[in-house]
C-alpha cells in the first residue's frame, strides 16, 4: 500500500449539513464525480463519498459524510459530527428558510465537533440568481460574524464547488501544521495514514483498511 498510486498521508473527515433539498448530495456528487446529478433521490440517514486531493504537495483522502436534512433525522446524523475535521454547512440561496435555519445548524456543529473543526458556509444554487432569496452580502456578514469561511456555489454548474472543499482542507492542513490540531485526539477528524488507529500493540502486520 505504501507505494500505491493512491497513497496519501492523511484522511480528513468531513460532514455536510443543512436543510432538506439545499443540494448537499449534489455538491458531494459534483465534487467526487465532477457531474451534476439532477435525478437523485433524497438522502435517508447518511451517505458517503471519498476523493483524494492534494494540499501543499501532500495527498489527502477526504472522507465525506452527507447527511439527511429533514429535522427528525438530526437525531441520527448528530452522531456523525463527532470526529469531523471539516463541516460544510449548506443553505439554498433561493429559499430563505434554509438560511434562517443556519444558526440551529451552527449550534449543532459547534456543540458536537471539536473546537478546531473548520466550518465552511456554502450558499448553493448560485446558478439560480434570478430566484435569489438571500443576498451574498447578508450571508457574508453572517459568516464573518461567526468566523466562518463563505462561498456561493452551484452544484449544477460546479462553480466554486472544488474551492469550497479544497479551502476547507487547506485550513485543516494549516491547523495541523501550526499544531493547533492535536492528531492524537480521537475526535480530531484527521487520521494520519501511517498510524492506523486500531493497530494492535506490536502487531506490525495489521491490515490496512481500504475505506
Amino acid at each position, binding site marked *: 500500500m505504501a507505494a500505491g498510486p493512491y497513497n496519501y498521508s492523511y484522511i480528513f473527515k468531513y460532514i455536510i449539513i443543512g436543510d*432538506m*433539498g439545499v443540494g448537499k448530495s449534489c455538491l458531494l456528487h459534483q465534487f467526487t464525480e465532477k457531474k451534476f446529478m439532477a435525478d437523485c*433521490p433524497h438522502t435517508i*440517514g447518511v451517505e458517503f463519498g471519498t476523493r483524494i486531493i492534494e494540499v501543499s504537495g501532500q495527498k489527502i483522502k477526504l472522507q465525506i459524510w452527507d447527511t*439527511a436534512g429533514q429535522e427528525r433525522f438530526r*437525531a441520527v446524523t448528530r452522531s456523525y459530527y463527532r470526529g469531523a475535521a471539516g463541516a460544510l454547512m449548506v443553505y439554498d440561496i433561493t429559499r430563505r428558510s434554509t438560511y434562517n435555519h443556519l444558526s440551529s445548524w451552527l449550534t449543532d456543529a459547534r456543540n458536537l465537533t471539536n473546537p478546531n473543526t473548520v466550518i465552511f458556509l456554502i450558499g448553493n444554487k448560485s446558478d439560480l440568481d434570478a430566484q435569489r432569496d438571500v443576498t451574498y452580502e447578508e450571508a457574508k456578514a453572517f459568516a464573518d460574524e461567526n468566523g466562518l469561511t463563505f462561498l456561493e456555489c452551484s452544484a449544477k454548474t460546479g462553480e466554486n464547488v472544488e474551492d469550497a472543499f479544497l479551502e476547507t482542507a487547506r485550513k485543516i492542513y494549516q491547523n495541523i501544521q501550526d499544531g493547533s490540531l492535536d492528531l492524537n485526539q480521537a475526535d480530531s477528524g484527521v487520521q494520519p495514514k501511517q498510524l492506523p488507529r486500531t493497530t494492535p500493540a506490536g502487531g506490525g502486520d495489521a491490515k490496512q*483498511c481500504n475505506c
Partner: protein
Amino acid sequence: LSVVDDADIAETRQSRYYQNEIRNWLNRHQPGMDTFDIHSQGDLSTYTCPELLSKSNNSAQSSQQSSLVGDRIESNLQLTEEVRQFREKEHGYQQELQRLNQKNQRLIVEIEQLKQLSQNRDQVLDKNYLLTRNRFLNSEVVRLSSKWQDEQSQYVQLSRRVIDLEAQLDQFKQQYVYLLQSCIRIPVCERHSVELVEVKLFGGDVHKKRVCQLLDEARRIDPTLPTFDSLTSGNSHVDLYGFRHSYAEESLALHYICTQLHQHYQSQLTAQQQHRHRWKLYLAQSKNIFINNKETRALVRNGIPSAYRSTVWRCLIHQQVVDYKVKYGKYYYRNLCSSQGSADVEFSTVHQKQIMLDLLRTMPNNVHFSSPTCKGVNQLQTVLRAYCLHNSTIGYCQGMNFIAGTCLLFLSPEDTFWFLVALTEKYFVSSYFDNSLTGAQADQEVLKDLVAHMLPGLAEHLEKCDIDLATVTLNWFLALFFDAVPFQLNPIAFNAIKPYQTEVEIAVQIGLLAISEPPP
C-alpha cells in the same frame, strides 16, 4: 358370332333368291305346271313330265302333231339343259355356302378358343405375377416395419435426449446470464465514489452477441424485455414498473439484460408456474381472507406472482386496517383529501413544503414520478398530505415517500394511504417514524447486537473502519429496503414483511448483511 349369323342369313337369302328365279322361269315357260313343286321333288334332275311323255306317245301319228312335238321336245331339251345348268350352279352355290358355313364354324371355334386362351392367359399371368409381387411386398412391409420400429425407438431415445439437452441448455443459459450478472463489481479505487460500478467481460464481443441472441429468443415470449439498443442508444428503456434504464457503457447494459434474462428464465421454470397455480387456487379458496398459517407463509415467502400482487397487497392491507376503516368510516380518505388542512397551520405548511421538496426526489428515474405533472407525483402528494392530516403526531417522515411511491405502482392512492397507516400504526411501534425516530434507532441497536452475535467478522470489520452499521441500515428500515436491493427484489421484501412484524425486517437485514460477512 354375329358375323356368322349374317353370313348364314346372306346365304339363305341367296338360296331363296335362286329358288324364286327358278319358279319364275318355270312359270314363264310352263304356265300350266302349277303343281310343280320344287321342294317336294327335291332334285330337279329326277324331274319327269308325265303329261309330256304320255302326250308324245299318244300323238305320234300326226305330222302336224309331230312338228309340234318336235318343237316341244326341242324346248324341253333346252329347258332340261337350262335346269341342269342351274342345278350345277345351285350346286356350286351350295358348296360355296357349305364352305362359308364351315369357315364360319371354324372362325367361331377359333374365336372361342382365342377367348378361352386369352382368359386363361390372364389368369395365369395374374396369379403368378401377383403371387410374387405379393411375396415381395410382404417382405418389404416386414422389412420396413421393423426398420420403422428401430427408427421409432431411436426417435424416442433421441427425443428424450433432446429434452434432456434442452433442459440442460436452459439451465446453462440461466447459469450463463447469472454468471455474467455476477461479474458486476464496485472497484475499490480511491478515486471513485461508491456508486461507481463496473462489469468486466472478457472475450471481445462474444458475450454481447450471445446475450443479444438469448434476448431475441426471450423477447419472442416476453416482448416487454428491453432491447440492447433501447438501453444504450440514449433514449432509455422503460420497464414494467415505469423505471427508465439507460447505460453509457455497453457492459453495464449487458449486465442489466442478464438480470432481466435471469428473471425471465426463472419465471419460465415449471416450479414457478406451479407456484403461480398454487396461488391461484389459494386465492380462490381463501376468498381473499388470509390467515397467518403455514400455507400462507410458505406461499408469501416464495413470492407473490406479479399477476396477483395488487390483489394480495390490497387484501393484506385491508385486513390490517379493517377496524380503522370501521372506526373512521367509509369516506375517511376522501374527506382527508378534500380537507382544507389541520388546525395547526404552521405544522401542516411545514410538512406540505417538505413533501413538495421530495415529490420529484422519490423516483426520479420512473416515468410516473419524473415530472410535476405526472399522475404518480400528484397521487403521491395527495396520499402523503392525507397521511399528515390523519396522523399529525408523526407527520411526514422522509422514507414514507419511497414506500408510498412503490405502493402506488401497484395500488390505488386510497390503498396506499391505508398501507402507510398500517405500517406506521400497526406493524411498527408508533415511535418508529416520530420526531426523533426513536423506534427506528432502537432497532438499529438491536440489529447491531444481533450482527455482533451472528456475523462477528462483519462487526469486527465495521468496527475497524469506524463505521456505524446504522449508516447503512437505517434507510433499510425506514424505506423498507427501497434503495438497498434491486427494485425487482423490493416488492418481494415488501411481501415478506406484510403479514409479519419487525422481526422479519431484521431477519432480512441480517440476511443481506450476511452476504458481506467475510468467510471464516
